[in-house]
């Protein structure tokens, strides 16, 4: 019942959002000050004379009016065709498909590191506020939030990969090569989550059921467990969105560690002015965000016992 109302409530909402996203990522290229046809020609070392430009415009379908081009593009996108790259003539969809798994892998590992680290650093603030561990954790979080990720990446690269030779320098081969990029990606995001978790746990600790637990004489350990479980639910949304967030934020890290992911693909495309790739990246990321948001909302509705009980009554 509840699930259905949530779905009915949220599903119609995402259609205009997806439409807006498609207009936005299509419009980006149209707003660009340089002519895509000319860019495409220059990339292939062809001198752009007016005739050749006109011919390329016709070949790329750029001579049509804007709405027609938009619907053609949308039709192609809905059929899974994201166009071809100006640089190497390969299908953009194939390139994205190749670059997606490494980024997902990197972001997933980083999420795990971030959650574990965030939890570890948040716990002392809840159960032993003001202790030395708590102060140490806060100090760590404070500097982690000001750390430029690209410097952190270079430092880790230098000390752990070059000097100590513990990890491979870059590229993607084996689980060991995943460690440094994931750590670099996770660390700057950790403080926000630690703060969120701490605030949620402190809020839960003041609730009546905790008082009831204590009054019943439950062991501090069990009380802690109850507080922990109930606080996780309240920050589920933020936790669920961390994967796409980290995927979007991975472009710097992917560049430092030569990780063959989406972010690096997009940054390379920006340098080459390879518009179809940029367009597809924006569309994919934005679409993923919308869908993830929906999934998280549905999960929250499913997991919350209060909502389940409401449905049962």
């Amino acid at each position, binding site marked *: 019942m509840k699930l259905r109302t949530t779905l009915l409530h949220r599903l119609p909402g995402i259609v205009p959002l997806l439409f807006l996203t498609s207009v936005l990522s299509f419009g980006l290229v149209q707003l660009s000050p340089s002519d895509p046809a000319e860019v495409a020609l220059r990339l292939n070392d062809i001198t752009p004379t007016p005739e050749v430009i006109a011919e390329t415009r016709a070949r790329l379908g750029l001579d049509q009016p804007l709405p027609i081009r938009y619907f053609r593009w949308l039709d192609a996108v809905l059929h899974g065709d994201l166009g071809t790259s100006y640089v190497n003539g390969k299908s953009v969809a194939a390139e994205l498909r190749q670059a997606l798994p490494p980024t997902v892998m990197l972001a997933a590992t980083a999420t795990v590191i971030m959650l574990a680290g965030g939890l570890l650093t948040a716990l002392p603030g809840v159960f032993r*506020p003001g202790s030395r561990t708590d102060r140490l954790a806060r100090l760590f979080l404070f500097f982690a939030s000001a750390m*430029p990720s690209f410097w952190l990446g270079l430092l880790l690269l230098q000390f752990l990969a070059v000097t100590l030779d513990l990890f491979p320098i870059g590229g993607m081969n084996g689980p060991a090569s995943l460690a440094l990029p994931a750590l670099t990606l996770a660390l700057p995001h950790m403080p926000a989550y630690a703060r969120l978790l701490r605030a949620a746990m402190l809020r839960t600790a003041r609730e009546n059921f905790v008082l009831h637990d204590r009054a019943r004489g439950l062991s501090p350990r069990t009380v802690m467990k109850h507080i922990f479980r109930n606080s996780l639910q309240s920050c589920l949304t933020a936790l669920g969105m961390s994967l796409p967030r980290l995927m979007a934020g991975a472009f710097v890290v992917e560049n430092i560690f030569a990780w063959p992911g989406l972010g690096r693909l997009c940054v390379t495309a920006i340098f080459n*002015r390879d518009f179809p790739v*940029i367009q597809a990246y924006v569309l994919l990321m934005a679409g993923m965000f919308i869908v993830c948001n929906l999934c998280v909302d549905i999960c929250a509705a499913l997991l919350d016992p209060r909502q389940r009980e409401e449905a049962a009554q």
Partner: protein
Amino acid sequence: MSLRQALLRDGLAVCSLLFLLLVLLAALLAPWLAPQDPLAPDVQNKFAVWSAEHWLGTDHLGRDVFSRLLYGARCTLGFALLTTVFTLLAGILPGLLAGVLCGRTETLLLRLCDILLSFPAEVLILAVTGMLGAGPEKAALACLLAKWPWYARMMCGIARQYADTNAVRFARVMGHGLPHILRRHILPRVAGETIVLATLHTGSFILTLSALSFLGLGVQPPAPEWGAMLGEARNALLRAPWLMLPPGAAILLVVAACNYLGDCLHDALEGRCGDEGKAVFS
């Protein structure tokens, strides 16, 4: 308790403030303080370690790193501050208007901001730089477009709070127009605090903009921007790994000082003068 008192009570906040002022002063006085020309190459003397002549050594073209760091403060801070100011301006007007007008305008703006903020800033920034190409002003524009909704929403909330005061109601009854109300009743109340707070958000702008410069999408070499300097140091990583230390540490310290001061001020403004950030060191 006034803001100044709240700040002065906290030793570390004073230190952060002094440090930031020192960096700003160094940035302003860079031409007089810098021992060498930051752009003059000296290939004979490249990758030199620190010495009396080159305090922090020289980079891959033999340029003096210390001088570049000083000029870099100018470049990095100036760039980030300008971007912050323009982003703030872009957010203030719609935010204040929506907050004062309430009703449908407010709902519309807040909905738009929610949509824009639901995408991560990184995607928007990459999208805009992708569209416009690499360059400092384009990176700044990308940052502005990605972050203005945040300020608009904040200003909307603040204006909303003041739109309900008797002074504003009275001004309305007196038949004063919207510009008058904004100028005389709303702006003076919010301006000081918000501008101070926003200045301290410069820290996050420094991080974003120098990351773009590091990748080569923002400030272009040979300009001595700290992120771009790190980008150059990265290419010389195997030859001279120490080159990445000065610009990275500079970014870290400035951003940390900005963040600490910002948190402190935020807490003071909220009225619960922060045990949050302060307990770190007390």
